């Protein structure tokens, strides 16, 4: 696998705010067949309009077009590059990421975003699963042998419209997420999946070409990727400023950059409410905020909606397997429908089905299933998992248990498997257990979700079994060393024996009872 470093520098062209009608002549999204080309047409039409604004300056759509074309030409010039080749992006949110993303698609490649801060064991599993042909990485993560790629000199207007061959049913990106066994699964999203989901969201959310979205969600995450698509495909502006870590910087950045929207996972809103001084900072430009990637407590959602009014607050629901959003709760329904994830987005079907895939009567809890042109092609090289998730009738089993009400709103009741949402990431307890069991051979580890400081985190129980000795300090050290922060247990207990159910399985419910509350 060869590594490439992008050295595109800053955009020197002065950005000029273009009117929304600057999209004239761009084919409508429903006619698009290739996501890369859809980007190309918007970028060409938007020219000097800022695509990305950072603390340092603006990057116009024209610059983005040249940068993406630079990537496309480089990839196509390689004799070993064939359509369908996998290009891994190990880049944080940046103009380079966006250019590499669409450049790869324009070259008929497949994008594989890699989280920058993933534990090495997991990263290795992903790399072994998809064997990327090319890696695009920043200088500090690239090896000595990496080649550098410069920006082409040609102006955006002189670049000929490329003719990629891949269409709506072809694979566009592989999004790795946690599967029901704990091993990473590559969600295969086609050009059509991503295009149709963007179209659905643009139908139900007020995103216009004059939008200036403050974007802090990572693009390697399904929700972040969805935000990227909806804004680029409308020719809107994304603002990269502030830090999720320091919540007060979020309202400050919204005010400073006149941002019109902001989207985040529930944990971020929890921090924003506690330490973000939301309501103190005036944000006259703000039109809406949205949450997805986990369930936000209803009282918090209502309070946020009050604090940001007259701006709207949208509760949304989605899954990587659906590219990524499935439901939206209209802001005027928030206070009346406690705990609702909303109604199906335009073009998406949601239904609660029983174990034989028959619809359950309204009000009864069952498997929440989704169908539509945004539902993935399947899991990368994993037919068994694909069959388990995707029935022949096209229904995607989300793994969430839900019920619906008389008006078609859905409510999540729990999970059908052990997957846990932490900071918007789907984590299987086995991801933690396997790391501990590998470090302490013979020991049996069980990880469980627990509430800590108002958020979902993990607790760990370890039973040494036989002669294997397990030391608490060593256990902590292994977790710190081998796990990313959101998977590190905040509570660890060593037990002589793990409690078992009557079926001789580990009794997770009994372990859960032992947890301190907090």
């Amino acid at each position, binding site marked *: 696998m060869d590594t490439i470093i992008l050295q595109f520098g800053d955009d020197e062209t002065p950005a000029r705010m273009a009117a929304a009608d600057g999209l004239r002549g761009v084919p409508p999204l429903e006619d698009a067949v290739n996501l890369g080309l859809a980007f190309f047409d918007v970028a060409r039409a938007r020219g000097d309009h800022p695509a990305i604004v950072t603390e340092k300056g603006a990057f116009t759509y024209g610059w983005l077009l040249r940068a993406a074309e630079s990537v496309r030409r480089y990839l196509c010039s390689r004799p070993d590059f064939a359509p369908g080749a996998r290009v891994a992006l190990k880049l944080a949110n940046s103009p380079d990421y966006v250019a590499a993303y669409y450049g790869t698609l324009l070259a008929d490649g497949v994008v594989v975003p890699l989280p920058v801060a993933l534990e090495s064991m997991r990263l290795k599993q992903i790399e072994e699963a998809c064997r990327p042909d090319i890696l695009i990485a920043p200088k500090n993560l690239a090896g000595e042998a990496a080649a550098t790629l410069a920006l082409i000199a040609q102006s955006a207007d002189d670049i000929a419209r490329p003719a990629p061959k891949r269409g709506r049913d072809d694979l566009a990106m592989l999004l790795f997420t946690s599967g029901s066994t704990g091993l990473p699964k590559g969600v295969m999203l086609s050009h059509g999946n991503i295009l149709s989901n963007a179209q659905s969201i643009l139908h139900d959310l007020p995103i216009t070409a004059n939008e200036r979205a403050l974007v802090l969600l990572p693009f390697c995450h399904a929700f972040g990727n969805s935000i990227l698509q909806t804004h680029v495909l409308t020719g809107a502006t994304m603002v990269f400023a502030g830090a999720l*870590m320091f*919540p007060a910087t979020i309202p400050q950045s919204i005010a400073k950059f006149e941002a019109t929207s902001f989207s985040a996972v529930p944990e971020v809103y929890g921090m924003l409410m506690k*330490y*973000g001084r939301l309501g103190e900072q005036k944000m006259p430009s703000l039109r809406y905020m949205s949450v997805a990637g986990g369930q936000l407590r209803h009282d918090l959602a209502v309070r946020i909606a009050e604090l940001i009014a007259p701006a709207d607050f949208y509760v949304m629901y989605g899954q990587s397997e659906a590219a990524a959003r499935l439901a939206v709760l209209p802001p005027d329904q928030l206070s009346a429908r406690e705990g609702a994830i909303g109604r199906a987005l335009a073009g998406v079907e949601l239904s609660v089905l029983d174990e034989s895939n028959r619809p359950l009567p309204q009000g009864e809890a069952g498997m929440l299933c989704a169908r539509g042109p945004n539902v993935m092609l399947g899991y990368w090289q994993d037919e068994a998992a694909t069959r388990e998730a995707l029935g022949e009738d096209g229904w995607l089993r989300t793994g969430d248990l839900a019920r619906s009400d008389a008006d078609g709103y859905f409510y999540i009741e729990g999970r059908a498997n052990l997957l846990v949402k932490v*900071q918007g990431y789907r984590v299987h307890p086995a991801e933690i257990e396997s790391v501990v069991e590998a470090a302490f051979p013979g020991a049996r580890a069980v990880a469980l979700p627990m509430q800590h*400081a108002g958020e979902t985190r993990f607790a760990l129980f370890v039973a040494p079994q036989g002669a294997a000795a397990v030391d608490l300090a060593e256990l*902590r050290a292994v977790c*710190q060393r081998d796990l990313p922060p959101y998977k590190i247990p*905040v509570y660890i207990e060593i037990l002589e024996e793990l409690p078992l159910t009557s079926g001789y399985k580990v009794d997770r419910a009994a372990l859960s009872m032992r947890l301190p509350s907090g």
Partner: protein
Amino acid sequence: MALERAQVEADILKFVASRCPNHPGLALDTDLLEEGLLDSLLLIDVIFQIEERYGIKLGGEHVGPAHFRSPSAIVDLVMSQSAAAQA
């Protein structure tokens, strides 16, 4: 009872060090932001530790880069908030 600065320094340093095992040289003046050691989860946990252990309550004005740049900045924050709570 007034807090002993030396004790708070030891507590904070120990907690942050336990979360940064790959950074053995962690000191009171280590720049946690520049070294990329502080992420949002460590921040949440440090705040949780501070609030639980010293019985102080932090507000939005405290959770910013100035107060969390280094272990000693965190100690300063604890000392000043604890003194304010006593006054």
